[in-house]
């Protein structure tokens, strides 16, 4: 058999020939992933550095940057479908980094019925999407972005803020009033249940921002300005004294039982860092697979992994970012040790092979698909072996 050489598909591409060398993408990229050609000044993308934030895509005036995720076509396609489905003329665009659940969104904007559009960073939404939404008959657009200091892509939230301010001026001139688009900001934080704290100090050690402090005698205090909401302290707390907005322990537990009930065996549950794997706006997962998107692999909690097996899930896959890609100061890598310890423990009761942790990045969209397929096949094989 001849070796097949296929080029890995990448999530972001720049068509150099049409590039007008305006340098907007070069100056906007938070990761210095875009270089300028020494002679022509045209943009060259270094995909290994790219974090797929989409800022260059939404900013490029010449439309020479393509992205596989949430491009204009898939966003407008989604809006058309969602407008029917949700039967509303209010759109809420929210960043996954700071968006609470739909009830929380309802409280934020005081809207009951709306079309939700959840994306990893609102900074990737180009002006055209707003205009398209309004031409489609959407009357009100609410945007929920991360508080600027907590933007996972550093510049996404501030850039979208300026974009929306400019758009509102334009909308007013066009006669749509001054409040066609409302921008609000939010950030999700740790919740402290002081009465449960056993003063072990795990949170103090693990927090990358030194947000928790422990004073003797007494309990943990968290500096909420320093907290970035990664959830690492929550996953490491032996006393369940810490929890995380929107990713509370009980909420994830409920989600696990709900998803486990929906699936057909062999059931594979994937705990994903939401910056490592981007869900598609189009495809529904198959009946054997469900995803739980977490704020960071730091919130991968061994309790939830055991719970998944206990609820009848056959395989648990964890998709995390590589250390260099972590958006939260390397917090994501810190749960690998407890997961490895749990895996050893699961091995004692024959389940060790049914837990797998891998690092992926959205820059190679097919890499995760391949790993998932491989893992699902392995789990199906184990299942067959058991029933045979």
């Amino acid at each position, binding site marked *: 058999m001849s070796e097949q050489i296929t080029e890995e598909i990448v999530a972001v591409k720049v068509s150099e020939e049409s590039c007008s060398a305006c340098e907007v993408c070069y100056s906007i990229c938070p990761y210095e992933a875009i270089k300028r050609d020494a002679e022509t000044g045209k943009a060259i993308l270094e995909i290994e550095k790219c974090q797929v934030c989409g800022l260059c895509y939404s900013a490029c005036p010449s439309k020479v940057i393509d992205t596989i995720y949430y491009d204009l076509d898939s966003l407008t396609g989604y809006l058309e479908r969602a407008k029917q489905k949700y039967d509303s003329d209010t759109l809420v665009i929210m960043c996954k980094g700071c968006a609470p659940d739909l009830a929380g969104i309802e409280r934020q904007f005081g809207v009951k019925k709306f079309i939700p559009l959840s994306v990893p960073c609102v900074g990737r939404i180009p002006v055209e999407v707003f205009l398209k939404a309004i031409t489609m008959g959407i009357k009100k657009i609410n945007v929920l972005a991360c508080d600027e200091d907590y933007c996972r892509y550093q510049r996404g939230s501030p850039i979208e803020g300026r974009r929306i301010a400019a758009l509102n001026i334009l909308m007013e001139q066009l006669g749509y009033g001054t409040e066609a688009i409302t921008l609000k900001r939010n950030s999700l934080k740790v919740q402290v249940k002081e009465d449960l704290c056993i003063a072990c100090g795990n949170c103090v*050690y693990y927090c990358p921002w030194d947000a928790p402090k422990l004073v003797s005698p007494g309990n943990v205090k968290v500096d909420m300005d320093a907290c970035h909401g990664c959830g690492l302290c929550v996953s490491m*707390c*032996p*006393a369940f004294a810490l929890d995380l907005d929107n990713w509370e322990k009980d909420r994830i537990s409920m989600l696990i039982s709900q998803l486990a009930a929906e699936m057909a065996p062999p059931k594979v549950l994937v705990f994903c860092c939401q910056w490592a794997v981007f869900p598609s706006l189009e495809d529904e997962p198959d009946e054997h697979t469900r995803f739980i998107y977490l704020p960071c692999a730091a919130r991968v909690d061994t*309790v939830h992994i055991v*719970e998944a097996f206990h609820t009848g899930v056959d395989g648990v896959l964890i998709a995390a970012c590589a250390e260099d890609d972590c958006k939260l100061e390397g917090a994501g890598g810190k749960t690998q040790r407890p997961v490895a310890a749990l895996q050893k423990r699961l091995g*004692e*009761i*024959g389940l060790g092979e049914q837990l797998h942790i891998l690092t992926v990045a959205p820059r190679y969209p097919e890499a995760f698909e391949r790993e998932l397929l491989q893992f699902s096949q392995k789990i199906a094989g184990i299942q067959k072996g058991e029933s045979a």
Partner: protein
Amino acid sequence: MIVTTQKPLDEILDFISPYKNILIVGCDGCTQPPRGIREAETLSQLLDLGGKLRNKEFNFKVNTLVKQCDSHLTAVALKDMIDDDVEAVLSLACGLGPQTIAILYPELPVFPAQNTVFIGAEEREAGTIEERCAACGDCVLGLTGGICPVSRCAKSLLNGPCGGSQNGKCEIDPEKDCAWALIIERLEKLGRLQDLEAIQPPKDHQAVARPGKIMP
């Protein structure tokens, strides 16, 4: 802190298999790693899964205690946790926990979920916990620059190092530091190397008559 390691699930399953209604209690005291409610809950689910392999179904109640070595605190808290249905107790504490509970509930079988290994401290970066105190009853840290040779030297030498000290490591395990190399390094920094000139007499191993008992 008192350091414990988890017993193999099979060993625990052997203990508890004759029973169905079992109380699992964590300890929020000093055990390292912490063996509180998170561990207790996790263990209950692992034992459920392990029980299935043995066609055995358990009914676990899961809770945690402030410190299982305190018999008064434990007695008060267990009153609300142990009813007539509870057939056995599984303790996640160090060796003190099961003993406290055994005295409080003479009729109730109690089992340890841990092996208690030593008094130690956590090296966070390395992810290890290392033995640092042997509870010898005759503390020599004042002479050794704050580094304990009784617990950290494989031979518990008081006049070290021995000939097996190689490049700062111990001959019995090159992963472990030679305590005496550390002591010399530290005393040098303190400008107190001359302290080593004094020969320490053999250790009084009866500084604590075992079993130890004191009146604080």
